């Protein structure tokens, strides 16, 4: 089976390190994956605020493209697994799939629209998050076999964000998700148990309702720091951006210096797998993450 990679707009710009590290890790673990040809924006939260049906149409185009791109598996069933690393894309695609399954009239309208551009959607595509793929398809044990440099001595706060785990309970409990923590533990680092791991970072509010966004991020960063985290790992380009890029501004507002490296979880996995930092896009971070080999020495 070949996964279909749906990057979404963010992974091509601010989330570039995410794309680089994701591809590198998947390559290292020999997971076959191919980018969706001619994908379009999923519509994110904004489209839903303007026109719901069009938002679903937009997302459904990607699903339909994926279905036509991937052939048929050994049993003769269509076998389409879309990997959507951006949490927002992930949720929008899943929501579209569920919505079109539940509401007949909307499904008809959307499929009618797709037919005008020569596409068809039959609800076979399964939408997966890379965390889900690594955890359930690959399995922690086989990841562990590839580990070259265990990340001993680093305390990692896993930040799950909102849209990967809510509102549908898909592969992790909504109230207290654990997959990332288990992964961190497997990589040799110490997972941090903190209560804010699913609390919202503000999403696009940082750009539009600045103070609200800043406060939310301040809470997350200071709580992680207070509990002794060396870094925070995220699963979403927007979360990463919010947590990382406003740290200097938050510091100047509050008068407290906060320097917390924010990594994508794939970067952390990549480090443990021994992939060079450059290939993982770590040089693109604002806050330099202390050399983990040095940490290893200290222990």
């Amino acid at each position, binding site marked *: 089976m070949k996964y279909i990679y749906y990057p979404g707009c963010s992974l091509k710009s601010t989330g570039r390190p995410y794309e680089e590290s994701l591809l590198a890790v998947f390559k290292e673990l020999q997971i076959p994956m191919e980018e969706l040809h001619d994908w379009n924006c999923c519509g994110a939260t904004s489209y839903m605020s303007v026109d719901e049906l069009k938002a679903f149409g937009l997302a459904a185009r990607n699903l339909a493209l994926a279905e036509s791109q991937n052939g048929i598996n050994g049993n003769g069933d269509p076998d389409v697994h879309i990997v959507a690393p951006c949490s927002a894309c992930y949720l929008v695609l899943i929501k579209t799939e569920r919505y079109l399954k539940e509401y007949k009239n909307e499904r008809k309208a959307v499929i009618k629209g797709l037919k005008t551009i020569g596409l068809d959607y039959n609800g076979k595509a399964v939408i997966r998050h890379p965390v889900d793929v690594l955890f359930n398809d690959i399995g922690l044990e086989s990841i562990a076999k590839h580990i070259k440099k265990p990340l001993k001595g680093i305390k990692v706060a896993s930040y799950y964000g909102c849209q990967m785990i809510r509102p549908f309970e898909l592969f992790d*409990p909504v*109230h*207290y998700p654990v997959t990332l923590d288990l992964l961190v533990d497997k990589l040799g680092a110490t997972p941090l148990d*903190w*209560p*804010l791991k699913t609390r919202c970072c503000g999403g696009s509010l940082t750009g539009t309702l600045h103070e609200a966004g800043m406060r939310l991020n301040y*809470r997350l960063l200071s*709580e992680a720091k207070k509990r002794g985290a060396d870094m925070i790992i995220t699963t979403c380009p927007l979360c990463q951006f919010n947590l990382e890029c406003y740290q200097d501004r938050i510091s100047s507002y509050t008068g407290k210096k906060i320097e917390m490296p924010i990594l994508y979880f794939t970067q952390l996995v990549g480090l443990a797998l021994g992939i060079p930092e450059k290939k993982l896009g770590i040089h693109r971070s604002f806050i330099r993450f202390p050399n983990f080999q040095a940490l290893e020495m200290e222990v």
Partner: protein
Amino acid sequence: MTSTKQNGEVRIGYFVCHCGHNIGATIDVLKVADVIKNLPGVVISREYKYMCSDPGQEMIQEDIKEHNLNRIVVAACSPLLHENTFRRATEKAGINQYYFHMVNIRENASWVHVDKAEATRKAIDLSRAAIQRVFFHQALEKKQVSINPNVLVVGGGISGIHAALTLAKAGKKVYLVERDPTIGGLMAKFDKTFPTLDCAACILTPKMTEVKNHPNIELMTYSEVEKVSGFVGQYKATIKRKPRYIKEDVCVGCLDCIDACIYKDGKYYDEFNVGLSKRKPVYIPFPQATPQLVVFDPEACVRLKRGKCKETCVEKCDRDAIDFDQKEKFEEIEIGSVIVATGFQIFDAKKIPYYGYGKYQNVYNALEIERLVNSSGPTGGQVVMRNGEVPKKIGIIHCVGSRDEKTNIWCSRVCCTYSVKLAHLLKELSGADVYNFYIDMRTPGKGQEEFYNQVMREGVHFIRGRVAEVTDWAAEKEEQGKLIIRVEDTLIGVVRRIPVDMVVLGVGVEPHSDADKIRRLFNISCSTEGFYLEKHPKLAPFDTASDGVYIAGGCQGPKDITDAVAQAGAAAAEALALIDKGFIEMEPNTAFISEDNCSGCKSCIPLCPYTAISFDEEVFKAKINEVLCKGCGTCVAACPSAAIDQNLFTNDQIYNEIDGLLKYEIV
């Protein structure tokens, strides 16, 4: 066809009821009466406002006499409600009650349909079917079965205790089966009871002692009902007696063995104190436990686990009451009726992760607080938290696990008032500031609203809002090291963060996790949430669909002590009414075999769940024992030669009912 007509020419009287507007508003009753009038056999067709009223019944009786009717059909409500009323009326007029048949056009038609024409058409169809059916009705007699006056009460909580005592006082033999080592149930764990604040132990222990000493009650603690067979009046039950490893008739409850145990201190989870203290492998649940007998925990006792121990307890026991070789025993008892009073369990707060139960040590559930504030509890009535401190600020969260689609959807009914009670007790004992977080305050019982008002005036804070989370992350300096309750004060419309030292979860109640097992033993139905289903929610809240099986207390639904006792008394009275009549009348819906047709194929014999069918090898025919037959009709449906038929549901009757239902298309 004529052979089935025992009393000459069939003369049917048809009566259709308006039931006020209940039927009349949806079904054109006049039209129905009009259509039925023209059917063959119908002598008279009438409609009336309330057929079940006295004038309505009198009308039937007069018509029977005047028009010499010999079949009666009433189209009204469900036969489960008024069939007996009309049967009696028919009997009074001098014809056999089984010449009567009832048509359900209320529950099955007028109440559930909107389209008047369609509902009327349905009423006509159902009535026509009944008219065709009664042609084949026959005169039958009710059969009588004697009743064993002994009663089995399952569950030794307050409901079971009260029911058992009521029956025993009336001179009936009662078997009281309780699975714990002591009776007393949940009530024994409480400190004070709302709204009067009288001490639970002071009112319960005298009753427990009375149970123990009553000559009519055979108390079987540490026992479970394993198997039940038979039917109303003649039940047989097998009781499993779990080994206590103590000779019950020898032990006097001196408790010396507990002191002598090789464990100097308690080490195991204390069920009675819900884990707030530890007990030894040999223990007595609480000082007033009834019976006053110790129990050995086979999971904990070294002698029972490994077979080797110094056996200091045996040395100490001068009556030689300890017997490590005891095995499970099974006793069979015969009873005529059963009262099921197995109670409820509290909701497991761990299922709601955002309240932090089991994660933060100072989050308690309400039952733990009951023990904590109890003067005979693990702290002797001192409000001391698990970290050894006395709380200065306490938050009590209502509706934990109740009124929530993700857990239990129902209102647990007792939590509001017990939370108010706990607020009062905690404030009194610790002097702490107490905050109650409620969604809607429900204090409906006698004296409960007054109690709520009293506690409000004591200065307890009441905040309307469902708590979203209990966390330990601090946003403010004052919040450091505290548990923070995040809630919207919905009456003010502002989100608040309230730091407290101790959180009490007002957990709701739910059916026992193994309620299904008991339910199947006694063939009781369940409502969707899992509480046992009563026969009628208002008029028979203690009766079940199984005759002779009654329910009382928390197993039927959430209720407080007052209501549980009331229901237990009612169930006991109901059982007494059954017993004192001396016999029970059964519907004559038994199956019978027409010997001429029986081919002797024996296919019916293994089908009967009551082994009522036997085979007469001499004449090579099957035979049905009418006493054993319960009237399910399975054998009737299976007989390949149509030799078996069932009274009240004969093949002729049902075929004609089908025919009547579908006739109009051909007309």
